[in-house]
C-alpha cells in the first residue's frame, strides 16, 4: 500500500492510514486504555512496521471507525467533494490500485471532453489469504493473540 501511495501521488491521489483499535491485542501490543497509548501504537506502525503514509488517529472510542463499518482492515477511497467512491471490507493492494487506476483514468476522460455519470457496481474481489504469514504477524502481538485467533477462527 505504501508503494501504491507513492506511485499515484503524482496523479492527484492522496493516501493515509487511519489508526483504529487493536484487532488482535496481545501481551506486547495490548488493547488501548488511553489516547496517549493509542498514539504510541500508531507511531510504532510508522517506526516498526514502516508505514510511510501519513497516519491519523481516530478518537479512543473509535467514532470514525465505527461510523465507517468497523472492519479491522478496510479501505475507502473518497473524492475531493467528500463522497466515497470505493469501499472494501478488507484491504487488498491489487483491488485498491485497480480502483485508483480506474478513477484517475476517468479524470483524464473528463478532461478529454467525455461526459460521465456515476453508476453503481458490485464486485467480489480476491485477497491474499496466506494464513501462515498472518500467524507470523500475530506472533508479533504476543502468544495471547495467536491463541485467541486459533480459538475464534481456527
Amino acid at each position: 500500500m505504501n508503494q501504491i501511495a507513492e506511485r499515484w501521488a503524482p496523479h492527484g491521489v492522496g493516501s493515509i492510514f487511519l489508526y483504529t483499535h487493536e484487532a488482535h491485542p496481545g501481551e506486547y501490543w495490548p488493547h488501548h486504555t488511553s489516547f496517549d497509548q493509542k498514539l504510541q501504537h500508531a507511531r510504532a506502525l510508522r517506526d516498526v512496521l514502516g508505514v510511510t503514509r501519513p497516519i491519523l488517529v481516530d478518537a479512543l472510542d473509535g467514532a470514525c471507525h465505527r461510523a465507517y463499518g468497523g472492519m479491522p482492515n478496510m479501505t475507502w477511497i473518497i473524492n475531493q467533494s467528500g463522497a466515497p467512491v470505493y469501499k472494501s471490507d478488507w484491504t487488498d493492494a491489487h483491488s485498491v490500485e485497480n480502483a485508483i487506476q480506474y478513477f484517475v483514468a476517468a479524470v483524464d476522460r473528463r478532461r478529454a471532453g467525455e461526459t460521465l455519470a456515476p453508476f453503481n457496481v458490485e464486485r467480489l474481489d480476491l485477497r491474499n489469504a496466506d494464513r501462515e504469514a498472518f500467524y507470523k504477524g500475530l506472533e508479533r502481538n504476543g502468544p495471547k493473540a495467536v491463541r485467541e485467533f486459533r480459538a475464534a477462527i481456527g
Partner: protein
Amino acid sequence: MEGPRVGDQSMIERYNYNEFVPQKFEPWMRFEESPPLGRPAPDFPLWDLEGRETRFSAVWSVHTYTAVEFGSFT
C-alpha cells in the same frame, strides 16, 4: 498536548476489547451498515502522531482522490 474529549467510558472499554473473542469483536463489524457510495461521507475529528487535531474532511479535500486504509498495529 490536547487530546480528544473523553467519550462514554463504557463505549471506550467495549470498543477497545481486551481479547479477540467473537462476542467482543463481532459487534463492531458492521460493514453492511456503512455509509453509501456517492453521498457525503461522515466527517470526524482525527489526530496526527503528535496529537494535533485535524478533520477527516481536511484530508479528503486536498487531493482529487484519497485512499484511506483503516487498521492498527495488530
